[in-house]
């Protein structure tokens, strides 16, 4: 609890210039819309999509690289130094990473969608370089961390997973260029598990130990349980890697899902207790999305079991990917993002201000209402499209998702405008970083 208190108390003096985290969040908001549009373009292939170049793969990477990782970079570079009581380090490096990473993601997505392997390779090179630089910054933040061991352990585990993701991404990109570095099925299995459950999943679970108690106004979860949950997740990932290399694949994968299930159950139990004991019960629409995301995380493991046991259900692999990437990670992240953006904006504006604006005065409620309905309808529609093997339903769902993403964009633009309007009278604002 002390660490969380220090997080709130010392936060304003440890903030990066607003232009740094918000450029990552802004790019994520834009890629969110592009992802739904790419899915709309590839809707006819979506219900049975498993792998291969085309617009569904582009949509997938616009979500993973463009929204999830983009947000993770901005959030972790801002939240970790604040939560672990460190001074802000470099501001130039995060800015440089953004300039390399953002066009890199665009090139990867366009290369995949338009089936241009050379463009995809150029984009992948930029993305890998940017993420290596990010990994170096993240390692610096984690090395200098004081307190919050549960969060730091999750951070290190995510860091190792990021390296595995980068190595397997390179192997997959080289495969498309005709240079097989690693068996494709092995590389793909490692890439999916270490990207979604590993890097993004562990970062999401780790940062939840800061954010959920903070918003619910509850005591921080027991560090030992947080570390135990992380340990189980890491064990599951290590065993999944063995299975990917062909060691008793089916039996081991069933065991992996059981261990991962235990990790998730332990994490969700801690989150439920934090919410149950929290002094703030009514957490609004954003936490409904967070709860839906948690449910989808559990559902993704059930779907994974179906895939491993070769259950007789068409499109199960697609359904698994949908539950994991859109149902769990994207839904959870959008719930947290709509909560953290006004909060962070308000903290930035509090510096040197006599009466800083409240988070709700910077937020925009109506676009979030539209986004909430559209996002949930789109996820349900995509699941229905898979089950019914229906491209028209997939197209309709993607259209509704795009409408929701546009509404989320309106929320973000409104927030930016209100931030600028509130900052204008002051002369003390930090200058933007290139």
């Amino acid at each position: 609890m002390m660490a969380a208190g220090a997080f709130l108390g010392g936060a304003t003096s440890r903030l990066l210039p607003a232009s740094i985290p918000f450029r990552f969040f802004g790019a994520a908001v834009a890629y969110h819309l592009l992802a739904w549009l790419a899915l709309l373009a590839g809707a006819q292939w979506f219900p049975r999509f498993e792998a291969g170049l085309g617009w569904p793969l582009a949509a997938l990477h616009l979500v993973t690289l463009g929204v999830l990782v983009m947000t993770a970079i901005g959030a972790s570079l801002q939240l970790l130094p604040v939560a672990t009581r460190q001074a802000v380090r470099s501001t130039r490096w995060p800015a440089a990473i953004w300039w390399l990473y953002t066009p890199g993601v665009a090139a990867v997505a366009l290369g995949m969608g338009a089936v241009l392997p050379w463009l995809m390779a150029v984009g992948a090179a930029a993305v890998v370089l940017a993420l290596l630089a990010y990994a170096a910054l993240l390692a610096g933040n984690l090395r200098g961390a004081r307190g919050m061991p549960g969060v730091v352990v999750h951070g290190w585990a995510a860091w190792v997973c990021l390296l595995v993701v980068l190595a397997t991404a390179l192997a997959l990109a080289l495969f498309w260029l005709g240079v097989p570095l690693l068996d494709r099925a092995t590389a793909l299995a490692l890439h999916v598990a270490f990207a979604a459950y590993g890097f993004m999943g562990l970062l999401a679970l780790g940062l939840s130990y800061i954010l959920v108690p903070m918003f619910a106004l509850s005591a921080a979860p027991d560090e030992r349980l947080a570390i135990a949950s992380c340990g189980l997740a890491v064990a599951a990932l290590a065993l999944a890697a063995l299975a990917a290399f062909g060691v008793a694949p089916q039996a081991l994968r069933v065991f992996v899902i059981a261990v991962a299930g235990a990790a998730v159950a332990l994490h969700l139990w801690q989150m439920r207790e934090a919410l149950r004991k929290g002094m703030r019960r009514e957490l609004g629409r954003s936490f409904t999305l967070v709860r839906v995301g948690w449910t989808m995380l559990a559902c993704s493991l059930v779907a994974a079991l179906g895939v491993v046991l070769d259950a007789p259900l068409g499109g199960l692999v697609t359904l698994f990917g949908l539950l994991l990437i859109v149902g769990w990670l994207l839904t959870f992240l959008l719930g947290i993002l709509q909560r953290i953006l006004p909060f962070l904006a308000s903290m930035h504006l509090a510096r040197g201000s006599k009466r800083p604006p409240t988070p709700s005065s910077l937020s925009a409620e109506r676009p979030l209402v539209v986004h909430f309905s559209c996002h949930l309808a789109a996820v349900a529609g995509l699941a229905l499209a898979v089950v019914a093997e229906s491209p028209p339903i997939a197209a309709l769902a993607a259209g509704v998702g795009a409408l929701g993403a546009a509404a989320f964009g309106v929320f973000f633009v409104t927030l930016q405008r209100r931030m600028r309007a509130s900052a204008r009278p002051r002369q003390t604002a930090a200058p933007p970083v290139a």
Partner: protein
Amino acid sequence: MNFMRQVSQVLDTEHRASLDLLGRVEQVFARAPRAGAARDPEFASLAAAFGRLIEQDIARHFDFEETELFTRLSEAGEGNIAALLREEHDTMREVAGEILPLARAAAAGTLADSGYDELRRGALEMVERQVSHIQKETMALLPMLDDLLDDQTDRELAFAYASA
């Protein structure tokens, strides 16, 4: 949350009571503005309770924290948190200055419909600032008091606060 010191426990109890009332105020005002709400007896009763909460917070709770606790926090090297909490008190005093006359008028049933919107805007701002402030105090100030106060100082401060 369990706190060891009497001072922390008393402040935590007040925070919980405040959060309960603030939640009710938020629910009433978060709805669309209602014509004639300013003359509703239930609304008048809630406005009276809200007004009392603000007056009590500013006159007693804030003053006690600033005089007895923030100073100790600063001396213990936590000047950042103390300064932040003090700034938030100042901001809430400013908001309170704007809405207290309106809340008193609403409690007396004399608030004009035109004043309702202003009270609603100010009350929602006050609720948000109070909740955020209680959040910080619960997570930062109260746990630190467990380490900062010895048994005797804790007893003396708790007695002084109860008598204030």
